[in-house]
């Protein structure tokens, strides 16, 4: 396995603390294209991996504002322009009555944007990933903690990187075929 045939390296750890310590050290060593796969949320892991804020909150805000604007416009256009209806002498643009639907649509569109945006930004659904080529990786859903380094990382050097991972107490370091 050389160059383009290789996706990267994955190290297996036996405890969340060992993984956390290793993630810190790997980042300190200058690696940036790293990821972890764990069977349950490990506190402090996102900070250790250096996760940065995503665009998702802005997407959700945009979705919510579009939903609100659309919801209000729908009612205003229907009640005021398209089919003007006099309800008990109230003004055609009875905005207080439009607020509940406006709010509901803001929540609906914002919520859908959050769910779909999260999937899109994570490039999900993803039926295949090179990590699946490592037989032991199935234990990421059970009792093992994995730290993966992408071969495209600027610091990545097959031998040196594997050595670093071994030095951090990895139970096993596997090469990941593409």
């Amino acid at each position, binding site marked *: 396995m050389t160059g383009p045939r290789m996706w990267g390296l994955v190290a297996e750890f036996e405890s969340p603390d060992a993984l956390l310590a290793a993630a810190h050290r790997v980042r300190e060593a200058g690696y940036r294209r790293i990821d972890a796969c764990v069977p349950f949320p490990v506190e402090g892991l996102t900070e250790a991996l250096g996760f940065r804020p995503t665009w998702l909150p802005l997407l959700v805000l945009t979705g919510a504002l579009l939903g609100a604007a659309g919801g209000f416009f729908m009612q205003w256009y229907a009640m005021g322009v398209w089919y003007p209806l006099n309800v008990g002498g109230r003004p055609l643009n009875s905005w*207080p*009555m439009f607020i509940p639907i406006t709010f509901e649509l803001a929540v609906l569109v914002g919520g859908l944007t959050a769910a779909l945006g999260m999937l899109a930004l994570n490039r999900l659904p993803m039926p295949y990933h090179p990590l699946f080529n490592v037989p032991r990786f199935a234990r990421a859903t059970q009792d093992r903690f994995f730290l993966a380094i992408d071969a495209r990382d600027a610091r990545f050097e097959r031998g040196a990187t594997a050595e670093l991972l071994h030095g951090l107490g990895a139970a096993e370091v596997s090469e990941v075929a593409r």
Partner: protein
Amino acid sequence: MTDAALVRLERRALAVGTAALIVAAVGAAFSPAAFFRAWLVSWLFCLSIPLGALAIVMLHYLSGGSWGIVIRRVAESTAVTLPLLALFFVPVVLGMHVIYEWAEPGAVAADPVLQYKHAYLNVPFFLARAVLYFVAWIGVAAVLVRWSAERDVVPDLDPRRFRLFAGPGLVVYGLTVTFASIDWAMSIEPRWSSTVYPMMFGVGQVLAGFAFTIAAAVLLRDREPFGRLVNPANLVDLGNLMLTFVLLWAYLAFTQLLLIYAGNIREEVTWYLAREQPGWLGVAFALIGVHFFLPFALLLQRAVKRNPVALATVAGLILVMRLVDDYWLVLPGIRGAERFHWLYVVTPLAVGGLWLAAYARRLRGLALVPANDPLVEQAMAAHGH
């Protein structure tokens, strides 16, 4: 805030309060009506902090969670101001005839509606109810404070007793605040009524309680080991709870508007017609913008909630808007209160200054971290997540 700083705060609050009280008393001699109105609002505002804080303490005994440990002592300590606030009810009694139309025999004689409501809205019954509310509040607060102090020295106190007391305690709080809000604020417009009003009033109190106790905890965070409780994880929880009450307040305030707008009944719309006058409309928009949208947008952000100073600033802003909201609830309903009066600024300083001095005095040397509560360890170890 060290004990020396607390003493300084107490002295300053006392000085400002006393000076403002003297100025307000002089103002009262010239325009008693404006003084009594301003006093009622300032008093309701200060009263909302201990009542809201005690409701939060009881809520936390029932719900659990690390967040409550942070503010338990700070919140409990507000109870010490209740007797002072009971004393501050005296000017409200003295000014009843200019605040409450139903307390004026002439007005009652001229209006059949007021005669009809006289069985409830009359001076002796009003005073008896006020005494009852304060007895209930001071009683509940005394039990909470005493048991909490007892737990510090008795290691294996049965924790169930706190829950068994907090449940009925919250029921008592809900009932007394409902009737107190009707007596002291809603009855200013005796021909009008709204079923959402007492709930809105109570939620406003709890919001004030959250805002005040969060700000107090942040100011006191340089005390050890209390400072370890004021960590980002707990602040995020407290910020989220405050946000919940901002939303609940906005929801209830809007619900009342929506129902009255939809109903469009002559007796009901009067409340909003009085608040649609030029000056008050501006206050309404300020409430929508600064009491709802601004804290909403700020409290959605984790960075704001994790930062003690930023969160305390938002809490301070909410507290100021609570006072504005109390003015908006009370003043437009009183005839002749449309114009701005300088006493509206000075009187809150008088009541608030004296109140704060009493509160700061209580905090001096107080152990801010409760002992023998298993939640303390959890709260100190809490990480941002």
